[in-house]
């Protein structure tokens, strides 16, 4: 079997490769449906969105070959270099970036624009894998935790400053990786609890929340005192006060942040989603149109190129962030559920493969990949089907855009490369 190492395709997981090409291909059909114009009929062309995307898709093949060409060790060894280069590219954006839609997220090379944040995800995943796979590394230590947080949040902060908070949000997904490697679940639990508290505060208002949370905590405290007696109070009084304070301050802080630090367009997104505001014309237009478009698909959809809402360009950004609404309209419940199931299969496959790695680096990287993809799915599809507020991040492999496509290609195929070599001694 040794000689097969010369063959770059040896040992690669064809299921993932197949899923990749299937999703990219199906994605392109939907981009074609969403961006078709009457004026141009050429498939490969720089003048249409779908023509450009087809070029981007063709270019993934040399990219894949290059990624597979390198040895697994190469990625492990140079992970930190990649990471530093990635951070550097983010820094270069501040002087040289081109401002599009109010964010300096792009380098402009003539016809082609590159969005570094789409690539940085892959290199951050490499860096996290590198750090966590070190034999000396123990996540139990606060010092090490801070190191990991630093690696993860440095690009996130730089991206937030562009400002592109949506893309930065993705870095939260690394908590899954850290958890897999031993970080306590408390971070995620506390995080989730505070998100719930945050949403409830927006929904019900500061005063009402302060009152009800005070009541709820008090009920627990009284119950504990009733059960544990005076001893409980003697040993835990500082914790009880702490809980009251933290929850109270968080609610007040949320109210303050929401009303004074958030911009009106952020507030609008939340309020439309939570149903506090009904607006199908301006702020809520995207979500309303997107939901309507999906609803109109019914069981089997209207058929390829026959979705009249898609063809009429009623959904803004439909070829990029809202591409899933095209699937919903033209391919119906069957088609859109199928896409979700394919994504789930891909994620299961990645996690399954990652768990089979003897090598820690490969496993952690695999978890990084799965977590990033998963987070994208939640945020993007959740937004398109009206479960989450509007956050402009692409649907992996589907959405129009060279940077995002190549970013995910690199992310996935590095894993495929690592996975192909997992059985070899390296």
């Amino acid at each position, binding site marked *: 079997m040794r000689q097969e190492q010369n063959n770059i395709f040896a040992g690669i997981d064809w299921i993932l490769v197949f899923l990749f090409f299937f999703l990219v291909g199906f994605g392109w059909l939907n981009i074609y449906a969403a961006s078709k114009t*009457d004026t141009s009929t050429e498939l490969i062309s720089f003048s249409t969105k779908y023509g450009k995307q087809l070029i981007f898709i063709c270019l993934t093949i040399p990219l894949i070959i290059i990624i597979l060409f390198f040895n697994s060790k190469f990625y492990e060894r140079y992970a930190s270099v990649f990471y530093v280069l990635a951070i550097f590219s983010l820094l270069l954006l501040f002087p040289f970036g081109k401002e599009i839609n109010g964010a300096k997220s792009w380098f402009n090379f003539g016809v082609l624009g590159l969005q570094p944040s789409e690539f940085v995800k892959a290199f951050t995943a490499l860096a996290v894998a590198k750090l966590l796979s070190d034999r000396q590394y123990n996540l139990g230590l606060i010092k090490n935790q801070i190191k990991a947080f630093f690696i993860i949040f440095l690009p996130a902060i730089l991206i937030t400053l562009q400002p592109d908070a949506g893309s930065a949000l993705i870095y939260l997904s690394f908590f*899954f990786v850290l*958890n*897999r490697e031993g970080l306590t*679940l408390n971070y995620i639990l506390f995080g989730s609890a505070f998100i719930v508290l945050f949403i409830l505060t927006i929904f019900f208002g500061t005063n009402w929340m302060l009152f009800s949370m005070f009541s709820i905590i008090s009920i627990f405290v009284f119950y504990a005192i009733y059960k544990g007696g005076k001893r409980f109070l003697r040993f835990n009084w500082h914790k009880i006060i702490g809980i009251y304070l933290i929850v109270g301050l968080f609610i007040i802080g949320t109210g303050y942040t929401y009303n004074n630090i958030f911009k009106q367009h952020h507030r609008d997104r939340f309020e439309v989603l939570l149903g506090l505001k009904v607006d199908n014309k301006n702020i809520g237009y995207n979500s309303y149109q997107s*939901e*309507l478009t*999906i*609803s*109109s*698909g*019914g*069981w089997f959809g209207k058929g390829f190129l026959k979705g*009249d*809402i898609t*063809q*009429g*360009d*009623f959904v803004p950004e439909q070829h990029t962030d809202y591409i899933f609404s095209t699937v*919903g309209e033209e391919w*119906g*419940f069957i088609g*859109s*559920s199928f896409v*979700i*199931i394919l*994504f*789930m299969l891909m*994620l*299961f496959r990645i*996690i399954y493969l*990652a*768990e089979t790695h003897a090598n820690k680096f490969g496993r952690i990287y695999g*978890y990084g990949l*799965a*977590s990033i993809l*998963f987070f994208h*799915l*939640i945020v993007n*599809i*959740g937004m398109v*089907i*009206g*479960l989450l507020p509007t956050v402009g991040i692409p649907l992996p492999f589907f959405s129009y855009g060279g940077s995002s496509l190549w970013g995910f290609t690199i992310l996935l195929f590095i894993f495929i490369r690592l996975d192909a070599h997992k059985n070899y001694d390296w």
Partner: protein
Amino acid sequence: MKRSFLLYFLITIIGVLFIGRLFQLQIIKGANYDPIHNAAVKTVYDYPERGYIYDRNGKLLVANQLSYDVMIQPNQVKPLDTLEFCKLLKIDKADFLKRYKKAKHYASYLPSVFLKQLAKEDFAYLQEKLHKYKGFYIQKRIIRDYPIKAASNVLGYIGEVNEVLAKKNNYYEQGELIGKDGVEVEYEEYLRGRKGKKYLHRNRFNKVTGSYRNGEIDTLPVNGKDLTLTLDIDLQAYAQKLMSGKRGGIVAIEPSTGEILALVTAPSYDPNMLVGRMRSKNSVLLFRDSISKPAYDRGLLATYAPGSPFKMMNALIGLQEKVITEHTSFKCYNGFRYGNRPNEFMGCHCGIYGKPIQLKTAIAKSCNTYFSNTYKRIVEHNNNPSEGLDIWKKHISSFGLGNYLGYDLPAGSPGLIPDGKYYDSRYKYTWNGSTTISNAIGQGEVLTTPIQLANFTAAIANRGYFYTPHIVKKIDNTPINNPNFTIKKQTTIDKENFNPVIEAMSEVFKTGTGKWSQVKGIEICGKTGTAENFIRVNGIKEQLEDHSILVAFAPKDNPKIAIAVFVENGGFGSTIAAPITSLLIEKYINGKISKANKYRETNMLKISLQAIYDKQIPKPQELETGTK
């Protein structure tokens, strides 16, 4: 627990959640999705031509004509020579700017009407030069055309569908044309036809991108149906001419069919006034004039005291209830004393003092005393006036009085025929025939519309039955078969009881109050009427000139026309209403006015009651009819 469990678990949860949400959206909510009425499909209408309207002799009354609207799409407008353009459109610059701003405010990328209904000659001139003005173009519209300037009250008019109606009725879109009055509204569904619908895909810029499902659900327009009215437009126009300078209503009916031959209200207006550019100005003139009310159809809506013609009704009931016979006689002493107090006396102009008067003479001379006696006998027959009056009303109702007649025009009034209960509540059970004696001579509480009285006359002409009056004879050249109009309605009076009354009515035009209006060769049967009326000015009752009334039919045998004429403040029935009736009957039956009677026409055309009407103008008023 394996560390990988959390992610597997979350992915599954999210996957199920998302598919569940998709199910909710696409299957549950998607079931209500309307594939046609949404933003992505545009419905384009293909309007059929509205049906024409003809009179009973095939004369064209309502046709269609093209009108030209100047349209504008502001985002395509290039700088232009406003001065020249304004000259072409005959507007000034300020008006131009106002209209431009309005269109731009509506939507810059959508066409809207810039100037409505251009005159034909302006259009011809503009068409040559329009290519210079980008963003402007001409849109054709079909509007109504009235070759004969008469019968506007019958024909009605068409107008644009407003927002409220468009929401209520899913056939119409805002701005489409719909019948608004007269036959146009009553027969709207026949006249309009059915518009064709074309479904097109459009994008969010409202640009059409192709046909929806290759046009398989598109429909073709169905042309509107032509109507033939029962109206004789020559008679109608002649009657309108005779009524010039007067106010009132005339209704003529063919007794053998119930077909309305003429339905006149005065003052009237030229139907072309509600078409074209002057429409809005004119509609203010027509609909805001609360004094002469040209848009108010007096023939259908105005309720007048019927006056003396109502005596025939009492005669018929008296005969039917056997309280009188043809030979019953009463003596008249210049009036009828119905109580002991000095004012409880009703005067009479019959001029036959102290001699017994029989029915024939009573009608011919319009004797108040005779009918007061008859009425008292009817009402007090069983010593129970309330019951007596109910019987009285039952007979009257069978002639279609006191309620809507059920004809095919959108306006109407029930009038008033009181019954026992009416007076029970008014007089607290202490009343009798004397209390309500004015009903004997068609004054007091009794109110009728001209069309009701014409129908009443037709029923007499037919000796006991009538067909509900109607205005449409044929739809699309097929005679109507509405049972409401084709089945005869029997009155409660027996046929033989009509003969003495008809003999008497014939006498009216031979020797009675109508003798100055007889026509050689036509035996007219009729009855004049003179109804007092008052106006109240600041609580002071002031008597006005009497209303001049006449009902008649002719010829006596095989009647061809039954007619009721009301002329407001026209004085005695014999002075205005009678000659007008006679002229109309002669015109209808002979087709022309003989030389011998030409003087009547000249006289009637000369008479204008404007001076009398003007007296009523400055004071805010309330018209009411009073007791004689």
